[in-house]
């Protein structure tokens, strides 16, 4: 397994840097451009969720890519807002989008604060 990590300032235009990294990493295992765009869509939702809460200011957005033979696991670390909050309309919307564009996803509480969100995209046959 290969691992790639990237950290960018929590600024809107920096999401483009993450897009570039995602597309590059996704292409390494042969994910097609639709699938790469799916991951970028999910990351957009996660990042902008934090941006919208202002809580991400001053912290970096950290993304870890675990490259497996059959799948790509993307971990967005220390997100400031849970996507599991059923009382929040924004949270429900973002969870819906993430659910649709990921093959699998899960949210975990980070011991150092915030939430880690794991997105999995499997390589098609």
């Amino acid at each position, binding site marked *: 397994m290969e691992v790639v990590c990237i950290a960018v300032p929590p600024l809107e235009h920096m999401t483009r840097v993450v897009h570039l990294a995602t597309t590059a990493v996704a292409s390494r295992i042969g994910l097609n451009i639709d699938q790469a765009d799916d991951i970028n869509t999910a990351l957009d939702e996660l990042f902008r969720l934090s*941006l919208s809460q202002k809580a991400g200011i001053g912290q970096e957005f950290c993304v870890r890519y675990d490259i497996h033979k059959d799948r790509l696991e993307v971990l967005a670390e220390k997100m400031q807002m849970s996507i599991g909050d059923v009382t929040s309309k924004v949270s*429900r*919307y973002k969870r819906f*989008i993430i659910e649709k564009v990921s093959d699998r996803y899960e949210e975990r509480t980070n011991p150092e604060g915030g939430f880690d969100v794991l997105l999995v995209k499997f390589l098609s046959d």
Partner: protein
Amino acid sequence: MTNQHHNSLSREEINSLFRTYKDNKEPEVKNVLVGAYMDLVHSLARRFANRGEPLDDLVQVASMGLLKAIDRFDPDRGVQFTTYAVPTIVGEIRRYFRDRSSAIRLPRGLRERSFMLNTAIQKFSQENGRTPNVSEIAAAVGISEEDVIEGLESNEATTVASLDTTTEEGDLSLLDIVGGEDQTLKMLDERLSLAGAMSTLDSREQNLLYLRFIEGLSQTEIADRLDISQMHVSRLLRRTLQSLRQNLTTSSREPYIS
């Protein structure tokens, strides 16, 4: 359309050729038909001259439109070919301008690369029935994977084409096409429970979301259904999601940093 435009072929002869081509798809017949309508191609291309693109390029693009029109024309419908072909050819030219224009003026090389990628993605998808990956696009275009990734990302930097943009059919806009599934909007709204935010979206934007997130079509499949490029679908979806997100954050009184 007069007989002179058809290189001395009568209307009956033209109709006969179209019927033959419809039945046999013989390249020789198609070539005769192309030759018969090249005056029309030149005439339509000249309408768009002096807009910053070489006339030769416009003639090439218009010719592509003519080929599509010949392939799709049904002589048994009682419509003259020119009536059918003009919107198709003009649509092709407009699409060419759309793909080459943006509010953020990208370097010429990057614009041309983006155009090549668009073409390569469409061609690959049609030939292989699936979406290409970056290395396949790189191989098709003959550039490095890094250049492909940069080109794909530059696509996002350009202005999102309007939903009013005409499609390959020329006289149809995306609004006409995407807006064709209104009965499903309520379902999407209910699924998302986003009544307030969804209502602020154009019904066509809602339908685009429906195709992607309820019907589960990939961007390439949506592109195929709407007869637009995958890169265009990507831009439209991203803009629509951004609108929805902004509406939601506004309605939830959550500050949004743009």
